C-alpha cells in the first residue's frame, strides 16, 4: 500500500508539478496557472521517458530495471531543477511570483464569476466527471490491447524490453516499428513504481488522469477563444464533452479512440497531443505573447517528442500539423523567421522519422 501511494504520488504529482515549474517562468505573467503547470510537467515527464527509453530498449534486452532507475533519477533531477527555479523566483520577486498558482488566487477567480457562469462550470465538470466515472465502471474491448497492454505486462513481469511476442510468449527480434513508440514501457514503469498490475494501470488508472488532462487541453484552447470569466468558456467545455460522449459515429474518430481506447498511444496522440499542439499554436501566434512565448516554443518541442512516444506514425502526424500551421502562419505574417522556428520544433520528429525509415 505504501509503495502504491508513494509511487502514484511521485509519478502523477511530484514529478509533473516539479518539472512543470521549469516552464511557468517562461510562459509570461499571464501564462501561469495550476493547469498549465501540470500539463507541461506531465508532458515533459513523458518526453524524458521517451528519450531515455529508446536507447536503453535498443541496447539492453533485459533493460527494465535500468530503465526504472535512470528515468526516476532524471525525473528527480528535473523536479529539483524546477523547485530551484521556483525558489530563486520567489526569492527575487517575493511571493508575488507564485501568486497565480496559489489557492487564494484560484478561489478569488471563482468568487468573481457570475451565478450563471458557475452553473455552466458545474455542468462542464459533470460532463467530464461522467466520462471519468464511466471509464472506471465500464470496460471497453479492443483487440489491440492484446499487443500493447501485453507489452507493458511483459516489460513489468519479465523485465524484457520488446523482445517477446505479445500474442504467444515466444522470443523474437526487436520490432523497432512498434518499439520506437515507448508508451507501453511507460505503463510498465508506472506499474513498477506503484506495484499495480500493468493492465490495471492501463485500463483503470490512466483514464482517470488522461481524460481530465485532455479537457485541460480544451480548457486552454477555450481560454484563447473566450475572455477569462466569460460564461461561454464553460459552455464551450461542456459542449466539447458532449461531442466526445456522442462522437462514436465510427470506429475511426478521435472521440471513439478517446473514450474506448483512452490508454493507447493512438488515442493520446489523436486527443491530448494534438489538442496541446493546437493550444500552443494559438499561444505562439498571439500578439499579446510577443517576447514571452519561449515557454510555449519549448513545450511545442516537448509535445513533438511525446508524439513519437504514442505511435510510430505519431511523429509524422504531429510534424505535419505543426508544419502546415507554421507554413500558413509564415505566409500570412510574411515571416521567414517564424517558418524557421516551427521547422526547429519539428527537428525531433524528423530524427525519429529517419530512424523509423532506416531501422524499422
Amino acid at each position, binding site marked *: 500500500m505504501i509503495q502504491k501511494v508513494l509511487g502514484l504520488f511521485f509519478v502523477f504529482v511530484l514529478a509533473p508539478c516539479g518539472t512543470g515549474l521549469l516552464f511557468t517562468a517562461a510562459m509570461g505573467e499571464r501564462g501561469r496557472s495550476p493547469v498549465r503547470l501540470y500539463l507541461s510537467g506531465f508532458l515533459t515527464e513523458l518526453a524524458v521517458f521517451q528519450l531515455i527509453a529508446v536507447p536503453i530498449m535498443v541496447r539492453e534486452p533485459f533493460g527494465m530495471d535500468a530503465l526504472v532507475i535512470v528515468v526516476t533519477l532524471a525525473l528527480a533531477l528535473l523536479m529539483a531543477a524546477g523547485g530551484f527555479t521556483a525558489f530563486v523566483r520567489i526569492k527575487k520577486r517575493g511571493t508575488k511570483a507564485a501568486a497565480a498558482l496559489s489557492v487564494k488566487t484560484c478561489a478569488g477567480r471563482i468568487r468573481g464569476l457570475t451565478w450563471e457562469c458557475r452553473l455552466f462550470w458545474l455542468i462542464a465538470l459533470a460532463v467530464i466527471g461522467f466520462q471519468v466515472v464511466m471509464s472506471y465502471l465500464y470496460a471497453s474491448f479492443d483487440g489491440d490491447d492484446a499487443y500493447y497492454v501485453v507489452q507493458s505486462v511483459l516489460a513489468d513481469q519479465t523485465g524484457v524490453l520488446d523482445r517477446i511476442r505479445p500474442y504467444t510468449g515466444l522470443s523474437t527480434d526487436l520490432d523497432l516499428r512498434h518499439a520506437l513508440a515507448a508508451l507501453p514501457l511507460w505503463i510498465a514503469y508506472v506499474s513498477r513504481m506503484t506495484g499495480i498490475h500493468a493492465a490495471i494501470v492501463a485500463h483503470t488508472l490512466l483514464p482517470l488522469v488522461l481524460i481530465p488532462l485532455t479537457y485541460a487541453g480544451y480548457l486552454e484552447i477555450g481560454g484563447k477563444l473566450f475572455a477569462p470569466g466569460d460564461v461561454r468558456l464553460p459552455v464551450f467545455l461542456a*459542449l466539447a464533452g458532449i461531442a466526445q460522449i456522442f462522437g462514436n459515429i465510427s470506429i475511426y474518430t478521435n472521440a471513439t479512440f478517446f473514450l474506448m481506447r483512452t490508454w493507447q498511444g493512438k488515442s493520446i496522440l489523436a486527443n491530448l497531443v494534438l489538442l496541446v499542439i493546437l493550444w500552443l499554436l494559438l499561444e505562439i501566434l498571439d500578439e499579446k505573447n510577443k517576447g514571452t512565448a519561449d515557454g510555449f516554443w519549448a513545450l511545442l518541442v516537448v509535445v513533438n517528442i511525446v508524439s513519437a512516444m504514442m505511435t510510430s506514425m505519431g511523429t509524422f502526424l504531429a510534424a505535419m500539423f505543426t508544419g502546415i500551421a507554421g507554413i500558413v502562419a509564415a505566409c500570412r505574417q510574411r515571416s521567414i523567421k517564424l517558418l524557421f522556428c516551427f521547422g526547429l520544433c519539428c527537428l525531433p520528429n524528423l530524427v525519429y522519422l529517419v530512424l523509423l525509415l532506416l531501422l524499422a
Partner: protein
Amino acid sequence: MLEILRIFREYCGSGWYPVLFLIALVYLLVTEKDRKVRIVLLETSAVIAVLFFLPPFKMLMDFLDEGTYYRVLWLLPMTVVTVYAGVKLIGRHIRLGFAALALLLMLTGQYVYGNVNISRAQNRYHIPNAVIAICNEMMPAEDEERVWAVFPDELIHYVRQYSSKIQMPYGREMLVPEWGWNWDTHPIYRIMREQPVDLDALTPLLTEYNCHYLVLNRAVPTTGSPEENGLVKIAQIEAYDVYRNESVPIFKKQAD
C-alpha cells in the same frame, strides 16, 4: 480518389459531425476576425482538408504507413471548430443556445457507451473474471517454468494481459482474417475453430506443441473422450472446462 472518398465515408460512419464541422468551418471563415484563430483553426484546417483529398498525398502517406490514412482526419480540430462556431452563433442566448446545441450534438452523433464493445467492468483489470480464475488455476509455481495453454477464441485476447507466465501456441493473429499472412495457419487452431472440436485429433498436437493445458467452452460440442486422450479435468470455471494434458510435464526452473 474513390478510395479516399471511401475512407472519408467510413470515417463519417453513422453521424453528421464531419458535416457539422464543414458548415462550422465555412461559417467561421466568413465571420472570424481574430488572426491567430483564423490561421490555426480555420486556414490550417482548410489546407489539411484539401490535402486529404489529394491522391498524391495519400500515396505519400501509404508509403510511410499503409492502411492508416484516416488518421490524417485527426488533424482536423472538428470538435473545437464545431463547438466554437456553435457558441459564437448562439450569441447572448446562452441557456437556450446551450440546450439547442447539446441536443444537436446528441441527435447527430452516436452514444459511445452504447457501443457493443463496452460492458460493465467485472474487476479493475477490465478483463473477464473467468479469464483471471482460469489463469490462476494454471499459474506455475515460483520454481516452475512458464506453461503453455490453448484457449477458445473469445478468451485469447485477454490471457496474456493478465499474466506473462501463460503462453499460447497461437494468439490474436489467428482471429484477424485481414492479416492474411498468418490467418488459419496453426494446426491446433484449425481444429479449435471447428464445431465439434475433435479431441482425438487435437490431443496429439497439444503434446507435440508442449501444451500443458486446454480450455474448452462447454457450449462447443466435442468428439472423442478427454480421459482416453490423457486430458484430466482440473476445474470448471463459469462456462469453461480446464483440462491438464498429463503427457507434457511442467519443468522446474534451473538454478542460474
